[in-house]
């Protein structure tokens, strides 16, 4: 058997000097550069390439383009395998490996083809009707149905490829590099516009590339465009969606066609988000088939595809052909077949009242032809004609998808029996076959018109453009023939949607069951729901529905067109921001120091914070517990650089802060700080932090790490939208300063050794602030404590943080100073009953957190009025309490619900929940904080902390939330 038995000896846009080797289902074949996988398979005589979705009928290549419903194969191996790939769009490369799908054990012998015999059990919507009783058997049925559903199998590996995203701007974006698109781009480019011209195929030229003579007449314009530096040509690029305000999303296949020869540094695909001032859609039209019995047999093909395989790929899809058409576009099919040496056994023209009414053969062997009446019913005895190829054409359907994405309307055009774009967005212009202009000469001039109008809309002047000469064409005509009814004695499924195995009878069933909206018919029958979105099916389908309902097609309308136009890889949509790049990692100035010390890190928003510093052989728990004891016993340092820091300046700075915080700041002296509580407008606590007055009109604010952005946005909103008359400026200085907390009874001793000012209690009192120099850096001190020990926070210009940190370590060595991480810090603040994120949870007021004393009664502040609502002071509100396990040893899980009785039957009254929990190294037992209805009024009561999902239930006693040093003696001296 010679290689490529169906390859023509000459012609085609393939490179015969090079041979490419590929496999399909394990068998080796050859092809050439310029082939698609589909053309190469046809050249090798492979007629059956897959099994259909529901009935597992053998199917062959149907089209030559992106609308392919049948030839869905798995291309590639291992992690690069891609299921459901249209063989018509795969550019052949050396070493390509492809597999058929949806068959077992093999394509030739598929057990699931039993479905075809059982077809009466599987009408549209079958799973609402069959396999329903007995109900307990349904799970078994469902498992089998799920296994059978779908076509390809997913690839259970991480995607190893790289994807890029690119933003671009242009004056005119032309979608479609065929006749109309090239002329539109040329007109706009000659007018001086910045143009992007994209096409989904590897080479521009559009449908002409599949016709005799190819796209020759367009070559001079293409050369001009390629040489114009204001024109960007993007082949292998699909515009898959049009969005608001001139946004078009493009998917560019950068290396898919290269296989193993792809340069590793290039991304596999690139997603372009283009902002275009004017959009020209020259997306062409898609040929639709005819609906008749047995119309899905392998080597029944669209007529334009037959011509394309002959002219562009030099492939014979068969040796003896019949052409079945209802329009003038298919006329040249017979001519091209004959010129290629194919015997044309018959041309069956519905315009002359003839139709194919049945087919036979596992792969096509013969067709039955009959005369039909106006309703598509066979009216005489049919005669059989032997053939191995049937070229069908039911008309051309303009591609209106992109026009429709932004709500463009459609109108029914009787002369072509299809929908064309109606009104739409002002900056989107459709031209050529995409708006129903089919004759080549008209399409070319329509492209020039559209490009010129787009340029004019931008204030440019399009110069005159000479059109290429075209051969005269047969005038356009069509006889709408939406279905050929079954002939008597010639049963056979009449497919409307090949990919989803939807037949004309399924549509009739839906109409009979009174599904009125075409959207419901679609979902009920799955018409148009495959990966091809019904590109070759939808119009036939809705026309059949219209006929059954005796309505006009325009009344039935279309289903909504949604992006993407063709499938887009999730990797392309995700772009480079996956895995560790999903969010940028934010690092403190001390990050490398922590890493070198072997610190365990924890994510806090985008930040990485050290959680603990385990010593060699030390467990995580041992480490942080040691750190707590070290801080409370002597001293420790903690990196708190992640806190939000905000500079507030201006003549009205004090007045502003008075309104922002619920506690008073009007009399805060320069050189002093204060804890500040910021509320939302509804009286709920937004954030807590410190406010240090560093000048008459200048303040340094800190916020919690996670609320830094929210707090800054809140301040900006107040200054811009609410009180624009205030002369205040705010700026985030989070990155300007590293921040170190130095805490513990010996912290003052350590500080005294490194600072160049006095730091005794008289010089630096509680909440006092001062500027000094440490390790040559000018730093600001605030004597404030989060841990409950004597402590200081040191703000350092970021670049000097490491030097200051190391200076503190050296100075603190004699006292046993050690670094402590976020875990130890959290344990200590829980020991002190200090509210943090789990308590400041968007539902709590200051009083709920035990901070009612901070709420000023003398001034207006944000949140004041709604804080005065009676419900905000209701005694039943959950308020902050402490919990300790009754048995003294069992940990109380954070998130556990508080209930009265562990044995209560649901529904159980929930009294509150545990917000924070830890083991207290200081007290030697587990402790927790919780919000409990009734709060401190229930002190000494025993409750149950229950976590049913974990099967945990702990008896706990209500105690004061400040477990350690409740009088705060250790803060002062």
């Amino acid at each position, binding site marked *: 058997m010679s290689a490529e038995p169906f390859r023509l000896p000459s012609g085609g846009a393939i490179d015969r000097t090079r041979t490419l080797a590929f496999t399909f289902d394990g068998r080796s074949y050859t092809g050439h550069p310029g082939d698609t996988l589909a053309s190469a398979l046809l050249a090798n005589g492979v007629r059956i390439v897959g099994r259909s979705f529901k009935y597992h009928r053998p199917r062959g290549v149907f089209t030559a383009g992106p609308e392919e419903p049948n030839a869905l194969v798995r291309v590639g191996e291992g992690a690069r395998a891609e299921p459901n790939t249209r063989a018509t769009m795969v550019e052949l490369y050396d070493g390509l490996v492809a597999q058929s799908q949806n068959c077992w054990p093999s394509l030739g012998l598929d057990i699931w083809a039993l479905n075809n015999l059982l077809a009466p059990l599987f009408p549209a919507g079958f799973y609402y009707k069959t396999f329903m009783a007995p109900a307990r058997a349904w799970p078994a049925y469902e498992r089998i149905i799920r296994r059978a559903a779908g076509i390809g199998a997913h690839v259970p590996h991480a995607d190893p490829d790289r994807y890029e995203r690119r*933003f671009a*701007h242009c004056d005119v974006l032309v979608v479609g590099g065929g006749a109309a698109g090239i002329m539109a781009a040329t007109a706009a480019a000659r007018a001086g516009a910045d143009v992007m011209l994209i096409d989904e195929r590897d080479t521009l030229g559009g449908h002409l590339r599949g016709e005799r003579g190819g796209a020759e007449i367009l070559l001079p314009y293409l050369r001009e465009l390629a040489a114009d530096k204001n024109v960007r040509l993007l082949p292998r690029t699909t515009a898959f969606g049009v969005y608001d305000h001139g946004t078009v999303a493009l998917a560019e296949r950068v290396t898919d066609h290269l296989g193993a020869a792809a340069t590793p*540094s290039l991304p596999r695909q690139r997603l372009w988000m283009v902002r275009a001032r004017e959009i020209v859609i020259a997306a062409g039209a898609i040929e639709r088939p005819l609906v008749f019995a047995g119309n899905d047999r392998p080597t029944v093909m669209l007529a334009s595809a037959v011509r394309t395989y002959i002219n562009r790929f030099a492939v014979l899809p068969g040796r003896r052909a019949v052409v079945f058409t209802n329009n003038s576009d298919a006329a040249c099919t017979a001519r091209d077949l004959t010129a290629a040496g194919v015997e044309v056994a018959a041309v069956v023209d519905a315009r002359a009242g003839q139709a194919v009414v049945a087919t036979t053969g596992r792969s096509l062997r013969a067709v039955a032809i009959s005369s039909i009446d106006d309703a598509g019913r066979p009216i005489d005895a049919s005669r059989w004609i032997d053939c191995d190829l049937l070229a069908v054409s039911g008309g051309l359907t303009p591609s209106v998808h992109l026009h429709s994405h932004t709500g463009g309307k459609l109108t029914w055009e009787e002369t072509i029996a299809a929908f064309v774009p109606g009104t739409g967005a002002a900056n989107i212009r459709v031209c050529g076959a995409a708006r129903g202009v089919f004759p080549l000469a008209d399409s070319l001039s329509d492209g020039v018109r559209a490009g010129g109008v787009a340029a004019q809309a931008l204030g440019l002047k399009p110069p005159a453009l000479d059109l290429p000469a075209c051969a005269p064409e047969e005038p356009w005509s069509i006889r709408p023939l939406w279905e050929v009814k079954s002939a008597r004695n010639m049963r056979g499924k009449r497919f409307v949607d090949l990919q989803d195995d939807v037949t004309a009878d399924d549509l009739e069933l839906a109409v009979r069951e009174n599904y009125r909206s075409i959207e419901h018919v679609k979902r009920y029958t799955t018409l148009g729901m495959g990966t091809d979105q019904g590109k070759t099916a939808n119009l036939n389908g809705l026309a059949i529905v219209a006929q059954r309902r005796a309505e006009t097609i325009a009344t039935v309308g279309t289903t909504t067109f949604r992006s993407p136009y063709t499938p887009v890889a999730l990797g392309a949509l995700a772009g480079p921001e996956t895995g560790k790049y999903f969010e940028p990692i934010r*690092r403190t100035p001390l990050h490398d120091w922590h890493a070198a010390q072997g610190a365990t890190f924890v994510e806090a928003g985008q930040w990485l914070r050290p959680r603990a510093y385990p010593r060699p052989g030390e467990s995580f728990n041992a480490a942080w517990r040691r750190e707590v004891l070290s801080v409370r016993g002597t001293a420790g340092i903690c990196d708190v650089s992640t806190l939000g820091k905000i500079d507030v300046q201006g003549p009205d700075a004090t007045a502003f802060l008075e309104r922002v915080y619920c506690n008073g700041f009007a009399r805060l002296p320069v050189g002093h700080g204060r804890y500040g509580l910021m509320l939302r407008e509804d009286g709920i606590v937004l954030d807590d932090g410190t406010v240090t007055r560093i000048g008459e009109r200048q303040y340094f604010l800190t916020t919690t790490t996670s609320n830094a952005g929210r707090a800054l946005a809140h301040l900006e909103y107040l200054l811009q939208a609410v009180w624009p008359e205030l002369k205040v400026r705010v700026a985030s200085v989070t990155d300007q300063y590293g921040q170190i907390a130095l805490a513990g009874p010996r912290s003052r001793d350590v500080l005294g050794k490194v600072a160049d000012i006095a730091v005794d209690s008289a010089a630096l009192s509680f909440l006092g602030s001062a500027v000094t120099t440490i390790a040559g850096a000018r730093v600001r001190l605030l004597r404030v404590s989060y841990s409950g020990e004597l402590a200081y926070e040191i703000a350092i210009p*970021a670049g000097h943080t490491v030097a200051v940190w190391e200076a503190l370590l050296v100075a603190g060595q004699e006292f046993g100073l050690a670094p402590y991480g976020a875990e130890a810090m959290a344990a200590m603040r829980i020991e002190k009953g200090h509210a943090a994120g789990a308590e400041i949870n968007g539902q709590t007021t200051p009083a709920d957190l035990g901070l009612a004393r901070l709420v000023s009664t003398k001034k207006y502040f944000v949140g004041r009025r709604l804080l005065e609502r009676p419900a905000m002071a209701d005694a039943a509100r959950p308020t902050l309490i402490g919990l300790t396990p009754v048995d003294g040893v069992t940990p109380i899980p954070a998130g556990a619900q508080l209930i009265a009785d562990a044995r209560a039957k649901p529904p159980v009254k929930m009294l509150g929940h545990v917000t924070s929990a830890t083991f207290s190294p200081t007290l030697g037992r587990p402790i927790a904080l919780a919000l409990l209805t009734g709060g401190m009024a229930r002190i000494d009561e025993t409750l149950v902390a229950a976590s049913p999902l974990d099967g945990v239930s702990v008896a706990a006693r209500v105690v004061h939330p400040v477990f350690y040093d409740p009088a705060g003696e250790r803060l002062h001296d």
Partner: protein
Amino acid sequence: MIDTPVRITARGPLDIAQVAAFGDPAQTAARLSKHFRLTITPAPNRAIVAGDLTVLWHGPGQWLIARAPAATQLADDLAELFGEDAAVVDFSHARAALRFEGDGARDVLATGTSIDLRPAHFSPGACALTALGKIDALLHAVAPETIDVYVARSYAQAFVEWLDAPVISS
């Protein structure tokens, strides 16, 4: 990730400060102009370079000023100049600056920001506040094929990782 040539250099060290007007930005601009002997306007998206000094628009009535380190701190100089008439904030440690040079500079940045970086639309003297990926950035067109990028210090390493390209240290 970069298929056209681009050279990325870390700029620095730089002394940086932000100046924000309280009232009429024109007055603050005039004072800055007099001090630096340059024409500084409140017009948005404009940058001016003179020797080792760069003044960039940084928001309504706000400028970011970058300079090679000198004997005195830039923020101190400006605080003394303005007293209470403008908000001066020290940014000397808050930013990392990278210079992108070459044919591919605009293409690389176009993978991260949706602003129009075409040479005719982002030409020397233009600056813009935007984001590259998820990292806020200030872009400055210094020359036709040279764009400076300023990012917050804490994002600097993440930014270099996002670029996935070699960066020459200063």
